[in-house]
């Protein structure tokens, strides 16, 4: 036996082979204990963090998203391109267009005459950002804004583009941003939904909004956006029916919950539980909502601040004021949609009407949050789903023109919660057509918003149909340049 082990190391007996193999395999097995899910695919990094809390200290606690539905032209708002005025009427050089696909609306156009902004631009604030004359109030607060000129998307038509920026995918059925936030962070105020949706319609050419933009997708239906009514009562059917007092309502809900739990025990459908929670939420909303519509604690000059329309239910200004109140009351994500920004034609006449609707109240929201000490914990986002072309759609005239859809570069702004104030991020070329510096893709935008809310976009996941999904799915990079 002596030295046998070392001497005969190359002609091993079966016994030795087996025992060594066993040891070798055993040590691999030991190693595999440190490699979780070695044989189930690469999901181990997605170890689920507890839901309902930020992953790390958030910069913003709430979001107010002032969505400008229909895609306002970047060239008449914040992306000043005097070259287009100089070259008005000349064809867009093919080298700049670079094979960009066209929509069905301009595909038959043989010429793409460049056209500059009908409206003048000036520089404002310490940042010296250019703002068009249509937005005098936003211009005043430009040092609070983080203007991103290099947003870019993949879609070229409204529906896919809207769906993309709202849900992170061009096809429907994915949860929207607000639903993800509700899922990841939970609601702050248990008496209101975590995700509210407010709709308004401007006077310009409009595009539809539809519930798939604020859907919970495959998440639990408690995360769905709750659409507020544009009438005097923002939430319908909250009042107790005549003859039913609070106590009997309570008893009714308790009994109903018992029945529902019985049902849940037999069929195991999680939606039953969700329904019970929704009934409870509605019950608590009966006390919370009247305070939202109450203007008695607001000073009279709020009307001058937000503009007189803020008292007319269903207008953008009224929705912005309501959004501030909802956000102040702990609603995680307030999503506004203002329709009417789709200026394929008649832009010089339609855009000022749209601008008039949104300029004063959007700026007022920033000031109002600031004076309440809430701006540093609320993220406000203003912008649409894509940009508009630097060339004219339809007949070209100097004082009346239209612009088609342009996905390659467009402008949005953010303010408050954790974004750098008073900066202009990214650059487009002189034609306002291509990005030359610091692009921000929709996925990057989502990743960054989630980061500001204290969520790691790679770690907030939901398993559905056999794989895990994220708002950014398989893409998305943080944009550190805009994070304060």
């Amino acid at each position, binding site marked *: 036996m002596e030295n046998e*082990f070392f001497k005969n190391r190359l002609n091993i007996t079966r016994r030795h082979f087996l025992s060594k193999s066993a040891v*070798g395999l055993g*040590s691999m097995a030991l*190693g595999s204990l440190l490699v979780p899910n070695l044989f189930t695919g690469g999901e181990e990094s997605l*170890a689920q963090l507890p839901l309902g809390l930020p992953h790390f*200290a958030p910069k913003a606690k709430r979001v107010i998203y002032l969505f400008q539905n229909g895609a306002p032209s970047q060239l008449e708002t914040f992306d000043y391109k005097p070259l287009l005025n100089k070259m008005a009427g000349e064809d867009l050089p093919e080298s700049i267009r670079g094979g960009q696909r066209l929509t069905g609306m301009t595909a038959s156009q043989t010429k793409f005459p460049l056209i500059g902004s009908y409206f003048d631009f000036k520089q404002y604030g310490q940042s010296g950002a250019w703002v068009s004359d249509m937005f005098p109030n936003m211009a005043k607060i430009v040092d609070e804004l983080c203007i991103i000129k290099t947003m870019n998307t993949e879609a070229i038509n409204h529906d896919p583009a809207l769906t993309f920026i709202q849900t992170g995918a061009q096809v429907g059925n994915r949860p929207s941003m607000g639903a993800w936030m509700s899922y990841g962070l939970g609601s702050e105020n248990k*008496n209101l939904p975590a995700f509210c949706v407010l709709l308004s319609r401007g006077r310009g050419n409009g595009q539809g909004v539809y519930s798939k933009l604020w859907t919970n997708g495959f998440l639990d239906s408690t995360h769905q956006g709750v659409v507020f009514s544009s009438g005097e009562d923002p939430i319908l059917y909250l009042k107790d029916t005549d003859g039913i007092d609070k106590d009997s309502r309570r008893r009714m809900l308790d009994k109903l919950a018992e029945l529902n739990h019985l049902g849940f025990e037999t069929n195991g459908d999680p939606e039953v539980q969700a329904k019970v929670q929704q009934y409870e939420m509605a019950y608590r909303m009966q006390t919370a909502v009247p*305070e939202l519509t109450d203007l008695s604690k607001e000073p009279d000059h709020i009307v001058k601040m937000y503009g007189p329309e803020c008292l007319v239910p269903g207008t953008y200004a009224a929705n912005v004021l309501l959004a501030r109140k909802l956000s102040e009351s702990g609603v995680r994500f307030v999503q506004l949609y203002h329709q009417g920004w789709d200026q394929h034609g008649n832009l010089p006449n339609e855009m000022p009407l749209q601008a008039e609707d949104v300029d004063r109240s959007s700026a007022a929201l920033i000031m109002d949050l600031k004076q*309440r*000490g809430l701006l540093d914990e609320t993220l406000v986002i203003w912008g649409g789903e894509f940009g508009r072309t630097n060339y004219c759609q339809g007949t070209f005239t100097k004082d009346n023109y239209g612009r088609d859809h342009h996905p390659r570069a467009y402008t949005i702004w953010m303010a408050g919660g954790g974004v750098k104030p008073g900066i202009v991020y990214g650059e487009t070329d002189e034609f306002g057509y291509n990005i030359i510096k610091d692009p921000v893709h929709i996925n990057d935008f989502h990743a960054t918003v989630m980061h500001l809310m204290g969520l790691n976009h790679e770690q907030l996941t939901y398993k559905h149909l056999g794989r895990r999904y994220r708002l950014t799915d398989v893409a998305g990079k943080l944009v550190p340049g805009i994070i304060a």
Partner: protein
Amino acid sequence: MNRFFKVCSYLLLVFNILLVFLLIFEAKVRIPVWVSPFGRLHPMLLHLPIGFAVVLVLLLLFKKEVETKSYAFLLKLILIITALSSCIAALMGFFLSREGGYDANLLQWHKWTGVGVSLFTYALTWFHEELAQKTKMLQLASVGGLILFILAGHFGAAITHGENYVFEAFEKKKDIQGFSQDSSMYQAAIQPILEKKCFSCHNDQKVKGELNMSSIQKILKGGKHGALWKAGDTLNSLLLQRVYLPLEQKEHMPPKGKEQLTVEEVALLTAWIKEGADMKKTVKDYVPLSKAKALAFKIAGSKSTEKTYSFAEASESTLAEVNTPFCVVAPLANGSPALEAEFFVSRKFDRKSLENLSKVKEQLVELSLAKMPVKDEDIALIAKFPNLEKLNLNQTDITGNTLDQLAQCKLLNSVALSGTKISKDKLQKLLILPALTEVFVWNTSLDSVAIQALSKQFPRVTINGGYREDPNEILKLNPPILVNEEFILKKNTAIELKHTLKNVQIHYTLDGQNPDSTTQTIYDKPLVVDNYTRIKAMATKDGWRASGRIDYTFFKSSFSADTAILLSEPNPRYTGKGAKNLIDLKKGPIDNHQDAAWLGYQNKDFVSLIEFKKPVPLTTITISYLQKIGSHIMPPAEVEVWGGNSEADLKKLQKVMPEQPEKMQDNANLGINVSIKQGSYKVIKLIVKPLPKLPKWHSDKGKPGWFFIDEVLFN
């Protein structure tokens, strides 16, 4: 003894396979917490193989002095212990490396040399007997092993102690001045960043990209691509361009794998360059509003960006005790001991919830009581939270009398008091708080003069007075609002207007003229109309600009017809719901002429017969049509009305030729009132001719026009 060797050889096999396995799956390995102490023993244990290796070398050197049999045994023993301890040290090193925070480059070198040592010594345990025969080979192997040992040791030492640790004493000491107001901003704040993050590749020894950052002159000289920055021009400063590139790009600096600049450091470099990149300007020479200065202070003050708290976490059961649906208490983030509490729904405010928060008084750092009926005496409760940093008392009932009690909150830095009854004197008592940096006093009695005075007195604190009405700014009023929801008025319904502001005058017209502020007809009560009416209205108010106009068309229906038939079929594309459309009192939408409420005709007369069961006294018949000029939908060219008591005895009652628009107009639902001789009728026949040719000004002039009808009304 054999048993010992056998066990050792098995252990060697186990550990080496484990090591190789872990290296293969390195990216996927997750180290559980309980393993980390083993990892941390690496710096201690690694000395064992070194020691044994030295003994081994000694044994080889003094081979002749040792008895052959003992020599073989000793060699085997020491070799196997060396191999075993190397392998264990390597494994531990692997665990330790997963904790992160090491220089990636050095770590790679150390890892692979370390693994090399382990595998090499393992191989020696197999082949040492053969080697023992061949002295040359043995010497070669020993020298090779020794070099491996030295390299692994060197890289390991460089990781823990820093590069050039041993000879550091010989290096010329640079005096790095601490952060002080009198030193230049460059020395105090910029240089430390460059030294920490750039210097390792851009120094006198290593001059990557021909850039040497070891002295101010050399930095100013720049590198291969020119100067590092252009003072004041952040966009064209090479340094910033490189820093802002995405991490994945090759040109990004510092390169991937090296320690990156923090967001604040980037911001500071940017601000410093933007503000002139002055190498000599001292910190105190920067203006108070300077961003660079603020950032420099921030970085000097707190080296870590994430705030840490020294107090312990509250237990889950305590958290559950303090939470109610109206008082929500939650950690600031996952794993953070700090808590924030927010109160909601003022009607449900319960003082007990506030008292209850004393259970988490250590942990509470943010508290929002906005809109709650909080009184002056409640401030005493709040003052008991020693770590409170942020307090929101907006729109509460406090007057400020007791704010001085908050002096106990030594860390309080932000207090919001907007919409309260606070006064200047009382605010003063709060402003002396040591950590206070911002207060919000919008919508209080403090005017801009008071705020200015306080700001001067307390320059440390930002006092935000918020929006103030600008008396010179005159805003445009919003237009009047129509209350009616239906545009077909039944017998006694009236047109109702309103406005959301007080003391507004609503000027209106019913004749199609555009009203303005001189229009004398002023709305004071709901308007009753007899017929199809177009109402235009606008609002005025003192101190405001006049509003825009509203424009609505109303149709009146005094008598409902019983049956309707079409004697000519509409265009097959726009057949709607047929004849019954005409008398169902349902309007078609203006923006969608394809809606089933509309009937469309082109190149063909609209002919319809409408009957009442009993004769009705009629004076006017109104035809409701669509005008959508862009889609060629125009007013009709001609309308003929026939009437009588049966289909057989119809008489032509009236013929009208409606006015045609003379330029482009907005889409609208308009009406044509046709007055007829007063009388009693049972049957009415209508013949409407669409416009045969679009007018000359139209872009499609000459093409046939369309006529769209949704309703016929009788009065």
